[in-house]
């Protein structure tokens, strides 16, 4: 019985510590992404990026003199958890905007809840479907997968003249979706897709698959997957002597990609990204340095995205006439911001009209921007 009592007391203490006080005139913004579990790496990087921007704001007196309190909650990349988080934000009238969620599958059921409580929402998830569901409370600064899949397809067909591609994707919303977009554009550009192969999101051994792809003898391999799968695939591809042009999406745009593949093998790989190179502008250089100083590590895969999303949200709050959800929501679709990712403005669906996309090639162990 004694043990039971200890457990109960511990549980009560834990419950009590959950509530944290907020000062009356603070601006409270929510954020949500997976911070534990298998996708924590990506989620955490996004949260860190946003936190970095709000810290920066608070150093300069916040928004209209009000301090910004950023409250990230973990959704574990689980749709059910996502709805709980959404409801928690909705219930807390202090929260006047949310940045999240990272996964399209988590965002979908949550959209309903956010829209019902009139919560202005900035979404980092990239599935094209999301913005077509007709919710008016949400904007997406990041380019959806259409842009990201189309750009490299155009480049390889038109500039490089490569016409025979093989697609590999990891059967996730993102991977499969983006591979599909690439396929459409590649075929529109006169190319031929000679095979599409699905893998599992956690796979690390692609050698058997690569050996059979070799039989197709493609000159382009497009891979819609996450990290470290992109790196592992390319590494194993080169080890088997498959020389085809490798193209991957934004997740691969990290230094890790090149270290994990090995500079020699990574040479020539193409990667799309929403951002010009970190050393291309003082802002980006500054961002990278600040991130290093604040968290003790280089920006993670989605850190810049998180930063830009925070910029959009902050801009809407800045313009809002009243510091509540309705006030922010009224401005959300109309904001135009010059973010870290470039200028942002939204169409009636909440999609970024000017979402930029950059194509990089690995050269001498570094990503180099391809001038278009």
């Amino acid at each position: 019985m004694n043990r039971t009592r200890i457990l109960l007391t511990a549980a009560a203490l834990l419950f009590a510590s959950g509530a944290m006080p907020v000062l009356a005139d603070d601006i409270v913004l929510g954020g949500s992404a997976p911070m534990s579990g298998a996708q924590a790496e990506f989620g955490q990087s996004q949260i860190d990026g946003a936190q970095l921007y709000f810290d920066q704001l608070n150093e300069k007196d916040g928004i209209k003199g009000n301090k910004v309190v950023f409250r990230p909650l973990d959704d574990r990349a689980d749709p059910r958890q996502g709805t709980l988080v959404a409801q928690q934000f909705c219930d807390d009238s202090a929260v006047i905007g949310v940045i999240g969620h990272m996964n399209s599958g988590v965002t979908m059921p949550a959209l309903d809840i956010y829209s019902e409580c009139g919560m202005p929402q900035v979404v980092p998830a990239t599935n094209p479907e999301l913005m077509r569901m007709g919710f008016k409370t949400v904007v997406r600064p990041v380019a959806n997968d259409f842009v990201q899949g189309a750009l490299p397809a155009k480049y390889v067909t038109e500039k490089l003249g490569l016409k025979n591609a093989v697609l590999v994707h990891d059967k996730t919303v993102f991977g499969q979706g983006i591979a599909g977009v690439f396929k459409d554009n590649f075929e529109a550009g006169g190319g031929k897709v000679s095979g599409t192969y699905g893998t599992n999101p956690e796979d690390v051994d692609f050698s058997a698959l690569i050996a059979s792809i070799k039989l197709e003898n493609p000159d382009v391999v497009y891979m819609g997957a996450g990290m470290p799968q992109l790196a592992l695939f390319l590494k194993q591809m080169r080890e088997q002597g498959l020389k085809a042009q490798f193209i991957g999406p934004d997740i691969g745009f990290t230094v890790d990609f090149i270290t994990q593949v090995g500079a020699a093998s990574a040479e020539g790989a193409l990667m799309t990204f929403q951002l010009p190179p970190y050393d291309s502008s003082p802002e980006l250089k500054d961002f990278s340095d600040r991130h290093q100083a604040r968290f003790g590590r280089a920006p993670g895969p989605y850190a810049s995205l998180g930063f830009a999303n925070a910029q959009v949200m902050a801009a809407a709050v800045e313009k809002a006439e009243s510091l509540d959800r309705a006030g922010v929501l009224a401005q959300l679709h109309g904001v135009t911001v010059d973010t870290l990712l470039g200028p942002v403005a939204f169409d009636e669906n909440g999609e970024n009209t000017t979402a930029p996309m950059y194509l990089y090639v690995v050269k001498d162990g570094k990503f180099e921007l391809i001038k278009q």
Partner: protein
Amino acid sequence: MFDYFLQQLIFALAIGAIYGLIALGYTMVYGVMRLINFAHGEFFMLGPYIYTFLFSGLVGLGGLAPVLDSAIAIVASFVIVGLLGVAIERFAYRPLRAYGRLAPMLSALGMSIVLQSAVRVTVGPQPVHFPAIVPSTPIDALGGMVTTVQLGILAAGVLLMVGLTLFVNGTRLGIWIRAASESWTTSSLLGIRVNRAVSLVFFIGPGLGAMAGIMYASYYGIMQPTMGSVIGLKAFTAAILGGIGSIPGAMLGGFLLGAIEVFGTAFLPILSFGYIGTEYRDVFAFAVLILVLLFKPAGLLGETVSEETTVAKKDY
């Protein structure tokens, strides 16, 4: 086509050796404890992290020749992970022995979460590059291509398996383990300190898991906190396939699962005229497992326990 087949066989052997090593840990623990040690995948994950920590520490301290540093770090990783296994058995499983089989299994699940999260919060969730211990050089083998790393893995895997087999069959400690896995009561009557045999198993199993982890990280060039989950489940499948509790069964199961996966990927689309894509590889692997169990209900090398040999009360 022969080249292609041979090439795939090489891949199957390399990944099979890794599966087999991890499966050994499951099977040995299951043998003496009848416990599905869900935390086993995490020992696999800890291997390369501890190795990296030790290796860079050694190098930082001035170090010896890189080969020596590496060797010391490998052996030390085995020992550290092994001791961790012993400690976890002592504190998280042993108190639950009298409570049937579900409670320790749950505890193992909890330990798995704890270990994985602990690594994630200390070193971060991101995958980290793991420099190859042996430089990867391709070698031409009868039309197929094999890299030195693959050869190294196969050699190390087979070496460890042979070593374990010799240990378990030829030494007194090994006999203790086998005796304990057959019957705790009889073993204790013979004066065998069963708890020590259990500790020994919890030293060797996780140690081998750590070795597999180092081989794996070295093969693929990365390590990350979640790397143990999926492969742990697969190795467990391999152990069941071979007949859980059977040491040769675990090795066979490992190689077989490697082969099923590789050949599933390589030939499923061809054989099904493209209707079944490579994404069905795991379905195929699981289907093979279920089929095997329907015909050999105790796995390939497991002992068929019928009502006639033991009239066992309560399955768990």
